[in-house]
């Protein structure tokens, strides 16, 4: 029993935390104690009290309610962006890894060039010029992270392609799509799951950063990064309100990263350092 817990201490720590955020995102309407958009000009920047458990922001809105609604935004932006990155990245990576030769070479060079540009600068320019908003944000973040995905999938797919069971399948007469979907894909699924988890945490960080700069989710819709960005200007009046969205972000990303590490060790013990 003790060793069972020790082996899974990261999952036991991070799993419930993540579950809390997921529940908050799904049941925001029921869980939030107040209207996240309701402004109370007489009640601004309050410290936590019985009426407002985590205090109020610069417009007197209830911070706890905004955090709960914010989890919906933060998780759905990151989730949708990761979906896009996964679809494009896995498809491209499988194609390049399976075909090999010049297709692989070309894709890898393209990706290397892409990876040397820090994402946030590209994102800033795109968001500043094409306008911010949910759809644009998801599209931008998804596009920025698919190259990393393709790279990982391609290198693993290329090594699986040379294994005996793929050769056996080829010898039995299987071709292209069947080999990719029935032989290679199931064998690299664990790598995809791990990469997916880490991309989720990158995407959340990027969304938070952009919203912090005022280029992501537009007010009054709450997102965690945007709340920190707004409240940071009021630390001199009351430093408490800004700490809550900051800590929420920290805990959420910590939970996802911890689960990613655990999945990495559990699914791919041979890669673990």
């Amino acid at each position, binding site marked *: 029993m003790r060793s069972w817990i020790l082996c899974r201490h990261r999952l036991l720590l991070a799993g419930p935390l993540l579950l809390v955020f997921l529940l908050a995102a799904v049941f925001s309407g029921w869980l939030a104690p107040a209207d996240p958009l309701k402004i109370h000009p007489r009640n601004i920047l309050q410290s936590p009290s019985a009426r407002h458990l985590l205090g109020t922001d610069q417009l007197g809105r209830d911070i706890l309610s905004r955090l709960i609604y914010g989890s919906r935004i933060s998780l759905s932006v990151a989730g949708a962006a990761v979906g896009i990155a996964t679809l494009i990245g896995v498809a491209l990576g499988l194609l390049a890894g399976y075909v090999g030769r010049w297709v692989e070479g070309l894709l890898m060079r393209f990706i290397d060039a892409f990876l040397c540009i820090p994402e946030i*600068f590209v994102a800033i320019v795109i968001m500043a010029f094409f306008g911010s908003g949910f759809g644009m944000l998801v599209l931008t973040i998804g596009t920025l992270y698919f190259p990393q995905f393709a790279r990982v999938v391609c290198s693993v797919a290329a090594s699986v392609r040379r294994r005996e069971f793929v050769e056996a399948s080829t010898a039995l007469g299987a071709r292209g799509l069947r080999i990719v979907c029935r032989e290679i894909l199931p064998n690299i699924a664990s790598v995809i799951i791990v990469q997916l988890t880490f991309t989720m945490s990158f995407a959340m960080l990027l969304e938070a950063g952009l919203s912090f*700069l005022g280029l992501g989710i537009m007010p009054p819709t709450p997102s965690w990064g945007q709340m920190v960005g707004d409240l940071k200007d009021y630390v001199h009046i009351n430093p408490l309100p800004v700490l809550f969205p*900051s800590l929420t972000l920290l805990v959420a990303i910590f939970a*996802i990263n*911890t689960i990613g590490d655990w999945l990495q060790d559990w699914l791919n013990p041979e890669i673990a*350092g």
Partner: protein
Amino acid sequence: MVRYVFLRLWASFLTLAIVGTLVFSIIHLLPGDPVLVLLGEQGTSSPEVVAKIRKQLRLALPLGLQYYEWVRGIARLDFGVSLQNGIPVLQELRTRIPRSLELIAASLAIAVALGIPLGVLGARYSNGGLGWLSSLLAILSLSMPSFVTGVILVVTFSLEFRLFPSSGYVAPSEDLVGHLLYAILPSLTLGIGFVGVVIRMTRAGLLEVLGKGYVRTARAKGLPERSVLYHHALTNALIPVVTLIGVRAGNLLGGMVIVESLFNWPGLSSLLVRSCYDRDYPMMQGTLLAIFALFIFISLTIDLCHATLDPRLREG
């Protein structure tokens, strides 16, 4: 070695050329007429104003010629003039690049000074409490968005203990001590975000090297553990750490955007954000180019350091 340096310089130049072309094409890729987008709400302005700005942006020329003019301008270090206030872009960049470089250098120093000892602890006591603590600190650092670190540091050290100013900038020529006080919190914020990467790389590198034959030989010779660890193992384990710091320098530049905005540090990325808001195309192109050039310069420096440390690389 000369051949390696030459090849590496050539590769950097090519990357810069590709990135530069991308930056040039931004103004043409963006939807709509840049001049009308620029004029925005005052779009009703007279045709003369439109024509003047078009000329200033050299938009009237054919595309090929525009590109040629742009490259020629850069070769003479002429990035154009800001559309907002008429200041030459180069002049603005010249004052801001050292400020950003200062933050990057200080935060790298902090990350290395904290990260390598913690990584060594993590590898040495990999199954004990200290190793667990080092892993926990690493994952915390990786999970902490830089503005969260920054906000926590400001609330603690600036508002609670009143040790450092919470945000702003003083030129070192005016007040050197004041300048350093202003620089401490931003550098610490950036550095803390990077420490996790350094801890993980040092730990993984050292654990790998500790399993190697020559370490066993060194131990079998009866060398004290301290000498085995620091003299034989660590020197070899640090080589990949140096490379990966170069690869991850992009993260550092990315974190800089947030840190400069949080601490009102007038560096390169706050200039980029402002010029994007203002639709100040020449300033934006110049800043983007400067940021990418900075990034390429950092990875070039790191690669050359790596080649001096590891002779195999120069020949390969």
